[in-house]
């Protein structure tokens, strides 16, 4: 898994590449939390465009970060999920809590 974290004002953009399973869940959780805890972040954008696989360990990281950002009245967005990843997100019900967008540009336009 490759991870790119970018802060734009109060927004943290996280681009994930590879498979989101238990092997990478802990690293992902720690890297995102370090930013959330030390920076003034109120928007969290997770870009899953290059994620080829997700299971409940990966979903756990997403829902955990959602709880964290919500506790400071922040917002979270998921962008670019492929058809197979989107299917799992919808099956888990995460899409009822976090809005799914096609690409990063769509969020800038909100």
């Amino acid at each position, binding site marked *: 898994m490759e991870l790119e974290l970018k802060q734009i004002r109060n927004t943290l953009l996280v681009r994930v590449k590879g*498979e989101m*399973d*238990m*092997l990478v869940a802990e690293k992902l959780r720690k890297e995102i939390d370090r930013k959330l805890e030390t920076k003034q972040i109120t928007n969290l954008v997770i870009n899953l465009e290059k994620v080829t*696989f997700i*299971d*409940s*360990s990966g*979903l*756990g990281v997403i*829902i*955990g970060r959602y709880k964290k950002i919500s506790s400071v009245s922040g917002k979270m967005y998921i962008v670019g999920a492929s058809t*197979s990843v989107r299917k*799992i997100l919808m*099956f*888990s019900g995460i899409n009822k809590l976090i809005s799914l967008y096609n690409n990063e540009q769509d969020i800038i336009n909100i």
Partner: protein
Amino acid sequence: MNMKNYVRFEFPSVPENVSFARSCVGAFATQLDCTLEEIEEIKLVVSEAVSNSIIHGYKNQPHGKVLVMATILDDRIMEIMIEDKGIGIADVKQAMEPSFSSDPGRMGLGFTFMKSFMDELEVVSQPGEGTNIKLKRCFLVKDKEALA
């Protein structure tokens, strides 16, 4: 029912092997008459079952062993068995409830995925003796064949 083919492998309970296990069973499933979407579902359930063995069965300790066996019974039926000798599950019924997790940081979706994407799920577990999970999936008859 006749067994057409099978694959059986065992590995230590380290997270690196979750990806290996699901890829291996997914590649084996291509021998069946099934779609790529169905193979993705097979990979997901294997990932969930193996992750459960490592996280819950062996409490993330690397000394355990996980056994995976995938069997093709005919062109449309696949059986997958995942076995560990970990701590076992005290209350299988409770563990299989949606959103139940013994770990508050997890979503408790593993068994829900297994139940939803497979046609049969059997969990045999005893505290202190480990857990054996049997999954069975019958792939649908393709439209072109149904019409022939």
